[in-house]
Structures are given as C-alpha cells and as structure tokens.
C-alpha cells in the first residue's frame, strides 16, 4: 500500500469516526487536537478502527506520541512493512 493510499484511508476513517472533521481540510501536517475537532476519546476510536482496518497493533504507549495526521500515517506505514 502506498503512503497516499494509507493517508486516504486514514482520512476516510477520521471523517467517519468524528463527523465534525468532514468540513475541515486535513493535511498530513494537521495537528490532531489543535487543527481538528478530534478529542482524546475520538482519537481512541480512530486508532481502534485503523488497527482493525489495517490489521495492525499500535501500542497504547505509542498513541501518546502521535501528534499530526502524518504521524498516524507513518505509524501505520511502519507496521505494514
């Protein structure tokens, strides 16, 4: 899967889990809680859905380190390799 494909899937899941983000322009550089409408519970939901969709596991400890949408894409990309 290419980075762009992962990014597109991430956006689809973000929009689905937190509908308030559908009207926001999300870029790889978007800071998760500052530039988006995602709170910590919404983020938990997103990560759980991403893990299921990509069949990966991101340790809870790593969740805390994800800062931008791009960080999320990178974390998935690493685990798919």
């Amino acid at each position, binding site marked *: 899967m290419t980075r762009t494909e992962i990014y597109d899937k991430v956006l689809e899941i973000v929009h689905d889990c937190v509908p308030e983000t559908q009207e926001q322009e999300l870029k790889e550089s978007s*800071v998760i809680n*500052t530039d988006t409408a995602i709170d*910590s519970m919404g983020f938990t939901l997103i990560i759980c859905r991403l*893990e299921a969709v990509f069949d990966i596991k991101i340790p809870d400890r790593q969740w805390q380190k994800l800062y931008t949408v791009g960080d999320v894409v990178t974390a998935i990309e690493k685990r798919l390799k």
Partner: protein
Amino acid sequence: MFQAKYPKYPSFAALLEDLAARQPEAPALRFGAAGCKSYLAFQKDVQARAEALKAGGKRCLGVLCDGSYACVREIFAAALAGMQLVLLDENLPEEELPALIRKTDIDALWGEDALDADLTPWLTRGAADGAGRVLFFTSGTTDSSKAVVLTQASLCASAWNGGALLPLSPEDRLLCLLPLNHVFGFVCGLLWGLSCGACVALGRGARYYAEDLKHFSPTAVAVVPMLLGFLLKQEALNQGLRLVLIGAGDCPPALPAAVKARGIRVSFGYGLTECSSGVALSLGEDPYAMQICPDFRVRVAEDGELLIENESCMMQGYCKDPAATAAVLRDGVLRTGDLGRLDEKGLLHVTGRKKEILVFPDGTKLFLPEYEARLRSVLPERDFAVIELKAAPALVLRGRETEREAVTRALEPLMRELPLSRRLKRVILDPSPLPRTATGKIQRWILQQKVVSQYDKN
C-alpha cells in the same frame, strides 16, 4: 446516622479475609475474554504472590497500572506483603519515571516489561515505614505533580463511605473502566465493588470501552464525563445497567440527562485525591446537589472555599513535601481550592475553583503555574495565559495573526512531549495586553470571559 451494610475494613487483607470467608465462591473479579476469580481464589492468588514478594525483600513497589487481573493481584499482594505502593500511569513518558521513582522511594517496578528503557539504575533503596501506604499522583503525568500519601485504611474507608450512600449488592457487577492509578478509578471502579461483595469486571482497555459494557453486562459503572459522552455516542450503555456514577471532572447537564432518559440511575460525585476520592454524591433528581458522605464534614469559608474535615479518609500528606502539605492541610482541615455552597437541606453544590487549576471532562487536571512555566520555556519573553475554552486548554498570547506559524513552530516540541489530553487545543493571538491586577497577576476570569464572548460571537 448512616448504618452501612458493610464493614469499614482497616486493610486490603482484612477485606479479602472477610469476603473470602463470607462468600468464598462468589465471583470477585471478571477479566479478559472469560476469566473469573471467586473471592476465595483471588485471596489464594494474592497470598501466594505476597509470599513471593516478601521473599524478595523489597519495600516499595511502583505499579504501572494496566488494569489487568495480574495488576490488581500485584497491588493486593504488595499490600499484604507490607510494601508501600505507588500507582503509576502505564502511559507515562519514560523520561518522567526516574523522577517519580526517586520522589517515592520505589525499589521495585511492576509492568516495566512494556517499557523500552531499563529503569533498574534509577531504583532506590526503598521506603522505610511504608507499610500500609498507597501513593497516587495528583495530576498523573508531570514530574512536578504531587504524590499524595494515602493508606489502605483510608481507601477502604472511602469505599465504605461511597457504599453507605450508594450500596451495591453481591448480585451487582461493577465495571472498572478507569485507570487504577487515579484514585477515583481505584476506589469507585474497584474497591467500592469489592467492599460490597459485588463482582468487579476489569475493563480491557481503551480499545474496548464500548464493547466492554456488552461483554461484561455490568449493573454499575464509574466514568469520567468524557468517557460517558463517548459511551452515549456509541450507544454502548447495556440493558441491565442500573447505575452510572460520574466523577473527576466538570460534567455538562446533557450527559446525566441522557443517562436518566434511558431509565438508568445517575449519580454525580465530588471528591479529591487528598480525601481518598469521594466527599459527596448526588442521590436525588438534581445531579449537582450532593449528599455529603457520612464520615465527612464540609464547611464553606468566608470566601466560598470548601473546607473539609475527615479522620478516616484524609491523606497523610504530600510525599516529602511538608510545605505543600501545610499549605492545604492544617489541624485536620483541608483547604480544597474549590468553591461551593451548602443549601438549606445541607446538600453540597460545587460552583467553581479558587486555585489555579483547570479540570477537563476526561479527568485531566492542569496546574496552571506549572503548565505555564513549561510554555514559558518555549515562549520566553511573551505575554500569555492558559484558559479553558470549550472544555480544552487554550493559549491566549499577546501577538498578531502573522505570528501564528512561528508560535506553532515554537510550541511543537513541547506539545509532542505531552499526552493528547494535555496539549493546547487552541492558540488565540490577541494584540491587546492581557488583563492584570495592580500587582501584575493575570486576571484569568476576565480574560476567560472576554475570549469566550468573542468566541461565541464568531
């Protein structure tokens, strides 16, 4: 005078001994896909592990709380073994752990397998005279947060106080979703259920928040407001759930109303780590009018601050910080820093905060002087203040919109270090000076009103 149905246990060992004798085969803990331990089986597991810990000769165990059965067993076993316990957030940044280990005299760690770093070099010689003590950190994740020294007896007394107002029965199943390193999670998610002889179902972690209610079919659950909002959004409240206890954060009225609309009883709790958790609970129709727990006496000072007295649940003090202890606890009276009033029926209404602290709906607390000092390290020479905006931290900085990119860049390294719930949600640039008193102190409430009104207009 309250006549609680259950004993006020002096220790975790006494609790286990009594329940294992009275209802040996009743389920004490459910966990994982299908795990279950009766009170007797749990007691035996704990005793066996306590023997091993005693043989190890360590005196202070730091537990990185993951909420698993093994974690609960370890906590009880260390208590039985006479060790001091320090309950830690399993997701703490590793670089913050050495300071907490030093501060609380930890000489052994449980749960460190999940860490990348080897913390052995940081372990101390252990705490002298720590038996019976259980330490919790007030704000979880900063190395300057205070370690509150509680005891097994104070925690059991707190559970007893909660059970006196909201009793559970052995037929009940309490779902424990909150982290055990928070005193609200430990007392209201675990000890409250065990003290009443109920079964406690141990939640399987954040990934399963919504599924756990279906999986364990609880009759009662303790939550923070943000988690409740999430569960409601996910339509996760199960049939058979009869009681939701909300605590540890400001709660918008829509949440208890939505729970009630589903025919479920809802109670709101007010408490502090310094008092081993709950001080008052709402029992009637109004979730914000709270009955004071039987062991507590609450007075309102002239300036509206709530003053609390209690012999059984009060902290011993802040660990190795007599000055901080003396600042809030004198002659057995705790100055809470919270504002409130008592109505004509003696019910407590909490109305605000005097101390410089923000508490968010997920239970996160920000001690503003400390938080702003960290911001100062990346924004030196700038005029700013942190306020609460839409239930999240916001930075108000004197400056112009053209500076936004530079400010964001300056903040990024610090924000990356912080967990999501403690990061700034908004940065507001305002060219006008921040409102200050004659002595130069920021008038935060004026700033808050100004920003909120501007935000509402837009």
